[in-house]
């Protein structure tokens, strides 16, 4: 009986994670597309040598975001880890985090009046929450940074 209650609890968490996590993810992807169109005129490159143009000012710009997995992604990934292969559940998470970080960096660049960012670098740090059972909840910080050049 207790086992059934536990199973029911897990199933409930899975359902909540699936429904709300998926809705939030789709909303985020739509939002990302809209803002990417909006910031399309802020150009990003990861080259270090900028074009020979008279730039007035260079400034470091950073965009960062912390994204967490939902319960469903967690269980789906744990299951997939048994057989190995691509963890699709996490791939979309990574994609979201990175695009969000770039957008925030672009927003900062635009706020400084720049239309181009050079030498863009990415950094990812996973923040595993300690003491949350055998497998801690996964969340990661995504950082994008570069040098914004103001003409």
């Amino acid at each position, binding site marked *: 009986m207790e*086992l059934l209650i536990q199973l029911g609890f897990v199933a409930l968490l899975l359902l909540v994670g699936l429904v709300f996590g998926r809705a939030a993810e789709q909303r985020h992807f739509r939002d990302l597309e809209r803002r*990417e169109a909006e910031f399309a005129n802020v150009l990003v490159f990861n080259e270090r040598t900028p*074009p020979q143009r008279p730039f007035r000012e260079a400034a470091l710009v950073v965009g960062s975001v912390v994204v967490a997995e939902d319960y*469903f992604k967690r269980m789906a990934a744990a*299951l997939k880890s048994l057989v190995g292969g691509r963890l699709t559940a996490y*791939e979309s998470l*990574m*994609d979201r985090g990175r*695009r969000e970080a770039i957008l925030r960096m672009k927003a900062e660049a635009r706020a400084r009046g720049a239309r*181009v960012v050079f030498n863009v670098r990415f950094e990812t740090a996973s923040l595993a929450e300690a003491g949350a059972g055998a497998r801690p909840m996964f969340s990661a910080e995504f950082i994008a940074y570069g040098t914004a050049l103001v003409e």
Partner: protein
Amino acid sequence: MVSYENPQVPHEVNVSRESVLAEFVRLATGLCLVVLAVAAVLYFCGGALARLVPYSTEQRWVGGRVLAPISEPADVADAARVRAYLQELADDLARHMALPAGMRPVVHWSDTDVPNAFATLGGHVVITRGLYARMPSENALAMVLAHELAHLRERDPISAVGGTASLALVLGLLGGDVEQLAPQVAQAVQLGYSRRAERRADDAAVEAIVARYGHAGGAAAVFEVLAGYAGPLRGATPTLLSTHPADDDRIARLKQAAQQWDPVRQPLRPVDEH
């Protein structure tokens, strides 16, 4: 002239196309099947190993301790008489059943209204007052006793214990919650596994009552009575029935065995003629 531009990149290449949900359902189903299969193999191996334990060792380990919770009947004199009658019947059936040397099952009478009977470790057979009172004939009662004796002969109780123990051991090694999980997993496996054992016990019991009475008449009545009791009371199914989902099938088999029986020339014996 060098140009700088940012055409739109296809972001979707970084996310695999397969549906996470479909994959999850597929994997979860597969995992359940694997776990059940492994549990079944473990249960089977543990049971087979436990059967190898000599009967004398089983009795030395267990003795009468497993029967502690059985409630003693209120009417002690009457209970003693019924017990003696049941023991005599069991002894006679045991003679027809070729029990291994040294195995002398002891019959107990439990003061419970739920019709039930079971065989357990150490060569004990328990019959409840509820079952005893509902048996229409001695032939039916003998069928129940012989069925339980057959379980003892095949060492089914210790095999069930061995199976459960091996499951508990592996669950414990894997770090599972043994106390909670092992009995439930064992029960799930047992449901499928014990059907064969029940059928075997039924066949042996029919043979024994044919040897004693010359026919298998009245045997099917046992399950008709039990099924009639379990019908309206879902959840309180007697354990004699709970692991046996195919009642109709069993009744049909017993009726088949009793085809040669002539009710007029071979009347059923009433319970406890003394």
